[in-house]
């Protein structure tokens, strides 16, 4: 049979010659201890946006097909353990609607009764804004929408924070708030950065410039998105390849992290084409006597249907966004040589544009063809296993959950809100259809407490209505953990439901090979090997999938 694959550094690193056993006592690893103490804070990295584009477009070569190693931060179950990058949330447990819409938010948001004191400002760029301290002393980054696009960027920002938090990433707390301009004053030391000019002392005219022609309620209150400063000391963004040389815990190349490879699936789903390094943030945090680097995603204002126009003002997404890199040599050459007769396929996409939610569609959305603004090394290294992992997480979002999260955008435009939710739902279904069709979509293997002696599982493909299962074929083996050899414990058997009876024999390790027989879903016949440790408390310790 074709090779089965057990991925991961948490596997691969340990699979050094000194460790001959297939499964070790701490498998499956639930938490990657990349939070070891770093005595002094790494320096702040300032990444040039232009360099980020240039380096990823022209300097780095994409990986050679067929030579991409498996993800290096997965455990023997194929899951991503908790770490300073990732915390398993909706992928491993149900999240209530309340929990989903609360997202990363711990508190109530900025104080709206007192005065906001501006600490610094940024005029120009896609989303001009400023940093404030509220009456409680908390610091927030504040951004606004243009008057003609109520909610476009701020709504996307908040919605993005909730989705990406639910996936498992660390994101800032974020709120949409409404406040009168009179409640904002410029701090005595506030400085402003105007695009193309050196920072200087901020004056009232700077605040006026930022708050002129911005979205507001009929009563005059201005709409803001307030993003709370993340805990710790900000030390700049991380790249999507290599490791930070000043972070001792960062030893797994980022392009080999499943949480960053799978990020492509999430970004494609939500059209987060602005998923660049500059929209990440590392922070030097302290807890339990240790200080270490924690990795955040931030700024989701340019995703879904929100983007910018050629002047870099907030505007509905450019139709190119999500369909083509900023610089796509292939498309350029084809257009040039064909005298312009060859047209980019996305030229013919028809977007339904709403001022509040911009332009996003699902009919022509193709997860494989989706593109961020420029090549992303982690995305380029995504393998089917990585995509399957991410798609499983996507599948956890019900229609109701999606609509509830979209509602948090507070667009005050029911038709636009419904359209956005519908598109997200349709794009979700396309993600599932694409990535549950490549592999046998069985997952979440566990020993059923209610049905002692059975191994139950989830069929994500069937749950997504991608096929109708005729039967499951399985065969039990006794696994020699020292040699990795498997001896059959019986013949191949079939069941029609999702519960495999355990064999009577109880070697230390059991393995069951499962295939899904479903008409029209050939890939589902690929084997999934599930490993159980039968000591004292039997448990599933490993899952391997045939590619």
């Amino acid at each position, binding site marked *: 049979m074709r090779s089965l694959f057990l991925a991961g*550094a*948490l*596997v691969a*690193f*340990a699979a*050094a010659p000194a*460790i001959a056993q297939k499964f*070790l*006592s*701490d*498998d499956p*690893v639930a938490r*990657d*201890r*990349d*939070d*070891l*103490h*770093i*005595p002094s804070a*790494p*320096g702040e*990295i*300032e*990444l*040039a946006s*232009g*360099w980020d584009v*240039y*380096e990823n477009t022209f300097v780095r070569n994409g990986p050679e097909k067929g030579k991409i190693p498996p993800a290096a931060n997965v*455990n023997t179950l194929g899951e991503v353990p908790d770490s300073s990058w990732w915390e398993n949330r909706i992928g491993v447990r149900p999240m209530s609607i309340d929990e989903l819409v609360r997202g990363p938010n711990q508190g109530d948001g900025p104080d709206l009764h007192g005065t906001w004191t501006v600490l610094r400002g940024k005029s120009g760029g896609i989303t001009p804004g400023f940093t404030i301290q509220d009456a409680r002393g908390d610091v927030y980054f504040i951004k606004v929408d243009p008057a003609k696009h109520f909610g476009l960027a701020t709504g996307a920002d908040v919605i993005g924070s909730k989705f990406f938090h639910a996936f498992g990433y660390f994101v800032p707390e974020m709120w949409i708030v409404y406040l009168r301009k009179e409640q904002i004053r410029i701090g005595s030391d506030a400085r402003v*950065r105007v*695009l*193309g*000019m*050196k920072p200087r002392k901020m004056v009232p005219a700077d605040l006026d410039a930022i708050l002129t022609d911005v979205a507001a309620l009929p009563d005059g209150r201005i709409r803001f998105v307030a993003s709370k400063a993340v805990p710790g000391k900000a030390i700049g963004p991380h790249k999507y390849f290599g490791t*930070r*040389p*000043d*972070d*001792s*815990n*960062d*030893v797994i190349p980022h392009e080999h992290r499943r949480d960053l490879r799978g990020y492509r699936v999430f970004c494609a789903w939500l059209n987060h084409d602005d998923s660049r390094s500059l929209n990440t943030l590392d922070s030097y945090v302290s807890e*339990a*006597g*240790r200080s270490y680097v924690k990795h955040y995603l931030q700024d989701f204002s340019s995703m879904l249907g929100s983007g910018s126009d*050629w*002047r870099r003002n907030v505007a509905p997404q450019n139709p190119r966004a999500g369909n083509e890199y900023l*610089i*796509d040599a292939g*498309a*350029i*050459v084809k*257009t*040039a040589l064909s*005298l*312009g007769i060859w*047209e980019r396929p996305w*030229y013919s996409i028809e977007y339904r544009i709403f001022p509040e939610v911009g332009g996003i569609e699902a009919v022509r959305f193709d997860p494989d063809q989706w593109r961020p603004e420029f090549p992303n090394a982690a995305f380029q290294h995504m393998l089917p296993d990585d995509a399957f992992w991410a798609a499983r997480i996507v599948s956890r979002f019900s229609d109701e959950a999606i609509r509830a999260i979209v509602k948090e955008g507070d667009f005050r435009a029911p038709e636009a809100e419904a359209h956005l939710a519908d598109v997200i739902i349709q794009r979700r279904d396309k993600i599932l259809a694409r990535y549950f069709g490549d592999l046998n979509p069985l997952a979440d293997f566990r020993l059923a407490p209610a049905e002692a002696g059975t191994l139950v599982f989830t069929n994500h493909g069937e749950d997504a209505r991608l096929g109708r299962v005729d039967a499951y074929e399985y065969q039990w083996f006794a696994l020699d953990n020292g040699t990795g050899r498997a001896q059959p414990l019986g013949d191949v058997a079939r069941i029609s439901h999702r519960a495999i009876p355990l064999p009577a024999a109880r070697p230390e390790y059991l393995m069951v090979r499962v295939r899904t027989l479903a008409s029209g879903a050939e890939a589902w016949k690929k084997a999934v090997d599930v490993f159980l440790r039968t000591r004292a408390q039997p448990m599933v310790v490993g899952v391997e999938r045939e590619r």
Partner: protein
Amino acid sequence: MRAALLLALLAGSSGLLRAAPLAEDDRPCGWAEDLDVGPRQAPLVEKRRAKCAALKAYRPGFIERQILAFEKAERPPITQINLFGLYPRIQTIDHRSQTAAGVRLWRPDVGASALDLAGSAFWSIQGFQYYDAQAGVIPHRGRSFPPFAIKGHDVFDLANVRLDDNRPFMLYAAVAHRWAPKFDFFGSGPDSRREDRASFSQRDTLVEAVAGYRVLRRLTLSGRFGYYKAAIGPGKDDDLPQVQDVFEPAALPGFGAQPRFLRYGAAAVFDGRDVAENPHRGGLLAVQWLRYDGREASAPTFDRFAVDGRAYVPLGHPQRVLALRAYASKGDPAAGGRVPFYLLPFLGGSHTLRGYVSQRYRGEKLALLQAEYRWEAAPAIELALFADTGAVAATAGEDLGRFRTDGGIGLRLKGHETVWLRLDFAWGDEGFRALFRFSPSF
């Protein structure tokens, strides 16, 4: 401190890594009080602790540092470097000037008023000099420079006049002086010969006032009144003969003496282009009347009428545009008079007949048709196939002569609102020309 770490590592050999409690200051890199990892995690923990000894700061490379400095405005863009509004510039300033270096003064909205101040001083490697000063409400958009003061007497340049959206009028005075040591003259009329190319120098002084108002959203009317004086002298091109050595006096009207002119006129410009310097749709129609009123008794007085029409037609998609231009000019001297040869409009050069050298065909009357098929390979990369055809007549009473035609291909790098760089390769009867410009063709 290290002993504690060693103890922890030794503990790892028995299957578990455990760190002993340590005082805060003694906590080494890689320490964790609650560390309790098994054999699967241990190699990663060891790798992390090993990295502790090899930590180094992120060091951006040279190019990255330059880009970052630019983005942080630590170093302003080279185009924004100025001293009290004086901007150093390297650019061409006239036909045959080649590269010129100089400074431009640009102080828009002085003291938050409507008053703008502009000035220029340039010297070219071919010895050309140009100086001007402008004051008043000068047409411009944002902080972009206004056109040179000497421009504007040609209908082509009217298309480049930009009135700010918030200030739909212009009212300014200008003074300009140009020294062009080596202009070319091939003779006037359609039968001028390439081998008759001869040199002359021209010194111009212009003082004028200009007023204009955007009467409709796309329609601007303007008028100008001023004083113009030119002085013609020996050409400084050592490789060419002097004009008087090649041409009979009758073929060089105005060579003997150059009068002073009062110059005044009016123009109307309808600008329906979507983006002025990077149009994808719409059109432009500029009409101009300009009178050169000779002040000496023997001086010729003549009118010039010119029209410049342009259309930009998207072909199925804005990435494909058919750009068309028709340009005609007619000098109308008083009875028996002639337009001085140095004031004859001409064809040839980067905006007209691109396969012919600049100033190649001069005449009191001329017509030009241009067509470009432009297609964008990317928003910033445009290619073009083009063809130009034009004809001149030596005097207004004659018919236009044989149309000269050229064709070629172009590559343009551009932003949304402007062409940064234009590279046109043109072929005509007189050979091949490569044109390298920082402006759109039309």
